[in-house]
Each structure stands twice: as C-alpha cells, then as structure tokens.
C-alpha cells in the first residue's frame, strides 16, 4: 500500500469499531516460598493496560525484557488466565462485542480459531515427537477441517508460503535450524486463517532476507484478508516498518502509545527515548549516541511507587515517586504517561 492509501485505511479504521478493545488487563503471578508453597507476594507481570487493535491493523508492543509483553499476549488468548480486565472482541466491525475473558468452554474453543499466536521460543512450543507436518495439520484436525489429502495439500502450501520446502513435512523439529523452526510455528499459526495473530518475536530468529520474506507475507495476508497483528519484537527497525501503532511498555504498564511515525519521530516518554537511542545500526562507522539507562531494573514483585520508571528516569521529580501519571494527549492518537512531559505539553498547547 502507498502512504496515502495507508493514511486512508488508518482513518477508516479509527472511525470503525475495533477488533479488540482491552481495558484494565492485569496478570499477577503468585510467588510461592517454602515447603507449604505459601504465597508470599505477586509478580505484577501486567498491571492494568488498555489498548485497542483495529481490523487490519498492526499494533506493536515494545519494551524491556520482562515488562510483560508475552504475558499480555498469552492472557488475551486465554493461554493463561488473566487476573482482571476485559477484552472486547468483534469478529467484524458490525458484530456485537464479546468479552474474551468472560467466555467459557465451547465458545472459547470456537473463538480460538480466530486468535492465534506465534511463540517466542519455537523449540518449547513444538512437540519433539511430532513431525512438523502433523504439528501444522493439528489445529486443522481439531477443528475438523479437510480430509487427509486436503490436509496434506494445505500443509504443503503453508510450508511453501513460509519459505520451506514441502518435503520437510515429515521431519521432526530437532532436524531444523532455529529459523526454520520459527517458520514452522508461523505456518501453524496461519493454518486456520485467523483474524488476529499475536506474533511474539516471530521474526527475530530469522536472517534479514528471510525476515523480509516473512514480513512481506504477513503484510500480504493483511492486505488480502484484513488480518490484525499484535506484534511483539525487540528489533525496533522491524517494528518501525511493520506497525501502524506502537505501545511502549515498562514494568507491566503502557507508558506511551501512538502511531508508528509519532513514536519513532517524536518520542515523548523518557523511557521511549532511551529505548530508541539504544538501537544498534548496521554501520560500523556510526557509533550511536546512547541515552544511557542507569540504575537497576526494578522488580515487578515490588514495583516502584508512583511512576514505575522514576528510579531510572533523568527527569524524575518528587511527584513521580508519589502518583502514577495519567496518560496525557500529545496529538490525536498519541498519549504519554509522564508528569513533567505532560506539563510541558500543557504549557506549549495553544490557548494556555
């Protein structure tokens, strides 16, 4: 799609009801100690996040390792049970919303077809005793799709789409390289023609040319079928390229959201700025000017008071230690949670 087309598509999306509306999502893991496994605290892996994903839109979740991206993705798909929140899902812009977190049994299973995930650690998610062909066919079988011949054809075409030769179908996961295994995971997620895919580090194990091939494929499927993605990745040049919108997380919370160009061209939150400055460049002559992040990374078991980032923030003031900053609007669609930044924005806003 050309830039004006994308802008138009984005405007249309904003007007329509989104595919997914997440409010107040929390996931706390109990921390147990001792012989009796007494609960001595909680890891607040995800601690109240809100976001939306439009039909045909790509939202990226970025942020420090351990900030809760995978947990957020897995909670949405109910692979782990969320602690609180709601996730309103609309298969099409006109359908009535259902709360994914309120569904049980059969309804949940049938919706699982629409919602797929590509796992961060492909080795851990593939059964070593099942051939990759069967691993890809399994979700199709579970949903009773296709006879044997049709399944084989479908598996072959999926393998081809992710750049693997169809004859690898009867091999076992350990016979593949890391990147090849990652692509098996992608083929499996695509098998059921879902509406939303959580791509958890889906392309990070791939060399750049195959990565480019997969990203083109994800984009093609989006253009063809209006697929939506929640894209979790550490490689920020990939995020910049693939995302419509970006949410930056820090220790279980979202600190900034906006359009991809807003986040990359005009980052507001001090954490976002530090993050962007750490991107390594494929040019040995270019030494990045880093905004160093000092201080120890705090623990989600006992997150800092107020703004979670205050222990490492160059702008921190007293009130940052006391109160969580409510999101302030930077521009339409661009919001930031930071006390001093919000003040600066209010001062520079016309009419104040």
């Amino acid at each position, binding site marked *: *799609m*050309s830039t004006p087309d*994308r802008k138009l598509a984005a405007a249309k999306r904003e007007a329509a009801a989104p595919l997914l509306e997440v409010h107040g999502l929390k996931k706390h*893991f109990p*921390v147990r100690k001792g012989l009796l496994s007494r609960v001595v605290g909680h890891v607040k892996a995800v601690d109240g996040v809100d976001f939306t994903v439009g039909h045909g839109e790509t939202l990226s979740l970025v*942020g*420090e*390792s*351990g900030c809760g991206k995978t947990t957020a993705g897995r909670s949405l798909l109910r692979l782990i049970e969320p602690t609180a929140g709601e996730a309103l899902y609309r298969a099409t812009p006109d359908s009535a919303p259902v709360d994914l977190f309120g569904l049980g049994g059969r309804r949940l299973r049938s919706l699982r077809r629409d919602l797929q995930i590509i796992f*961060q650690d*492909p*080795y851990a998610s593939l059964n070593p005793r099942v051939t990759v062909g069967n691993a890809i066919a399994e979700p199709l079988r579970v949903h009773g799709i296709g006879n044997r011949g049709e399944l084989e054809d479908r598996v072959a075409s999926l393998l081809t789409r992710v*750049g*693997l*030769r169809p*004859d690898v179908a*009867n*091999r076992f996961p350990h*016979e*593949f*390289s*890391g*990147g*090849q295994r990652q692509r098996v995971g992608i083929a499996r997620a695509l098998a059921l023609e879902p509406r939303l895919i959580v791509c958890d*580090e889906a392309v*990070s*194990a791939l*060399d*750049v*040319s195959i*990565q*480019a*091939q997969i*990203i083109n494929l994800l*984009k093609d499927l989006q253009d063809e079928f209006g697929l939506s993605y929640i894209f979790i990745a*550490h*490689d*920020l*040049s990939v995020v910049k*390229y693939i995302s419509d919108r970006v949410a930056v997380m820090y220790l279980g919370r979202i600190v900034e959201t906006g359009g*991809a*160009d807003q986040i990359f061209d005009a980052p507001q939150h001090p954490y976002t700025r*530090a*993050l962007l400055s*750490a*991107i*390594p*460049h*494929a*040019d*040995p*002559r*270019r030494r*990045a000017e880093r905004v160093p992040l000092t201080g*120890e*990374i*705090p*623990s989600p*078991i*006992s997150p800092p008071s107020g703004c979670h980032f205050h222990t490492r923030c160059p702008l921190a003031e007293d009130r940052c230690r006391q109160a969580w900053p409510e999101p302030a609007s930077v521009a339409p669609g661009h919001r930031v949670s930071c006390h001093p930044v919000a003040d600066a924005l209010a001062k520079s806003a016309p009419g104040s």
Partner: protein
Amino acid sequence: MEKSPKSDARTPLLELRDLRTWFRTDEGTAKAVDGVSYRIHDGETLGVVGESGSGKSVTALSVMRLVPSPPGWVESGEILFRGESLLAVPDEEFRRIRGNEIAMIFQEPMTALNPVYTVGDQIMEAVMLHRGIDADAARVHAVEMLRKVGIPSPEARVDNYPHEMSGGMRQRVMIAMAMSCDPSLLIADEPTTALDVTIQAQILDLIRELQEEMGMSVLLITHDLGVVAETAHKVAVMYAGKVVEYADVETLFGRPRHPYTIGLFRSLPDLAGPGERLVTIPGIVPSANAFPSGCRFRTRCPIATDRCAQEEPPLVPLEAGSEHTVACHHLEEAEAL
C-alpha cells in the same frame, strides 16, 4: 567502548579448516556444514552471519562436540584450538576444555536450561564444577552473575524455575552460566535475540569488558547486522554450509562483494520507506541434502552463468595478500548489483 582488533600472524585461538559436519536423514545425507574455514585470534570477535539453515549453529556445536550423534558426525576437516587438534582430544579431557576454556550460549535457552531445577542450582553446578568452590560460595557467585547480566532482584530470582522467567531473562541466565567460568573462547549463538535493545547493549558491553579484562575471544553468531557492526572485528558470511565471504567489519559493511552478501544487506528494513515492500532474495534456500552443482548460490543469484553451474568458486583473497576473501566467479558483474 573501543574495539581493538588484534589479529596478526600468531597462532589463532581457534581455527577451522575445511570442516564438514553431516547428518543422516531419511532423504539421504544432509551436508549441514560442508567445508567451513575460519579463524579467531586472541581477544578478537568474529561475527558469523548468513542464511537461516546455512550451518552456523552446527559449526559451533561441532567445536563444542555437541552435535547429536547419531544422526550427525564430523565427516572431515580440522578444528584447531591454540594450534592443537580438538578432534583428537579424548572425551574426558574435552569436557574439561568445554566450560573452562570454551563456553557456549545457545540459541534457544529452553533447550539448554533444565526445567526441573532452579536457575540458581544450574549456575551453581557450573561454577562448582569448574572452579571447585563450595555451595555457599557458588550461590553468592550465582547471585552476583545474575546481577551482572542485569536481572532485577537477583537474590529472589536465583530461586526461580526457568518457566517463571521471561524469554529475555532465561537468555541472560544462560549468559551468566557461560560467563561464570571465565572462558578463553565464548561461542555466542544469537545471544541477544530475545533481549530488548537496552539490555542488549548492556550484555554486549559486558562481553566487551570481559574481552578487555581477560583477552577473551568471541564467536558471535547473529543475524542482527547492527549487533555485528557494533561488536565484531571480523565477519564471516555463510550460505549453504560454506563461508562465501570474509573480511574485517568495516570492509564488509562498506563494500560487500558477494552477491549473497549484497542481497542480505539490501533486505534490511531500515532501507525501506513506509508502505514499501521489503527487498528479498528471490527463490528458496537449497536443501542440505541436494546442494546445486557449482556455486550453491547460483539458483538465486541474479548474475549466475553457465560457469557458476559447473565450477565451484573457491574462497580466495580479493587480491594477493588481502584478508578479504570471497567465493564468486563474477566479482566485476557483482559490483553492478
């Protein structure tokens, strides 16, 4: 931090000579590594990049003597460590080298960590074995290493099981384990893929620090060209079981010469405008069971000729005496790509 390449005519710390590691599969022999040569000097970092499935990990596993056998075996070639053949070393002695002298960070942390032990137990086991210290001292050391790799509240995390950690934390546990033994050679297979850029920068700095303090050498396998640019002194590019180009990092990034390397750089998403399709290398990677004749890249190479199908291009210096080596028959035509 300063990079200080120290390559000279001394004996390399590690040298591979025409290494071949093959696997028996249902469809015949997979020649995963099929004639790989490279060297790493003391205090040097060699970055290895290349196509997924080109044999980067299997090469490293061959050095570590960790290729699953069967179905895999080292068919031929040499692995020299400080000038001595590693392939000839008996298993027992090799176990001492592995860990004390050579340590490895694996591509997929879950495969290297034992799910039924806490991460602390696993680091402690490694240091007790290699440093001969008692459990209390080892625990203190384990906590310290977890702190060094940037894990928050290491005193609490040391008792976590691997599944209780995020992907990036598991990766750092493995880095901590490998570093605990002060190896002379660190083999790092995609060490920072699961890490966000700020922690990635921290880990790369840590690796560089150890390198400066102790003259450690690093074999860094990664597809992240940014990481290679910032960390490596030398770069080897692999395709289909072979090294197709080798040079120092400035030369390789400044002026890549092999058509595959040129295509690889062109696929970087940084170069694409918004909404533009990414450039890819057309075609599908050949199977390790049936590599094309002649040049293995020819089925996807835009400038391939009949000669490429008949003769295998050797990895030779660009000009006499040059350290930059390339395996391609048509370097002049490749300039125009």
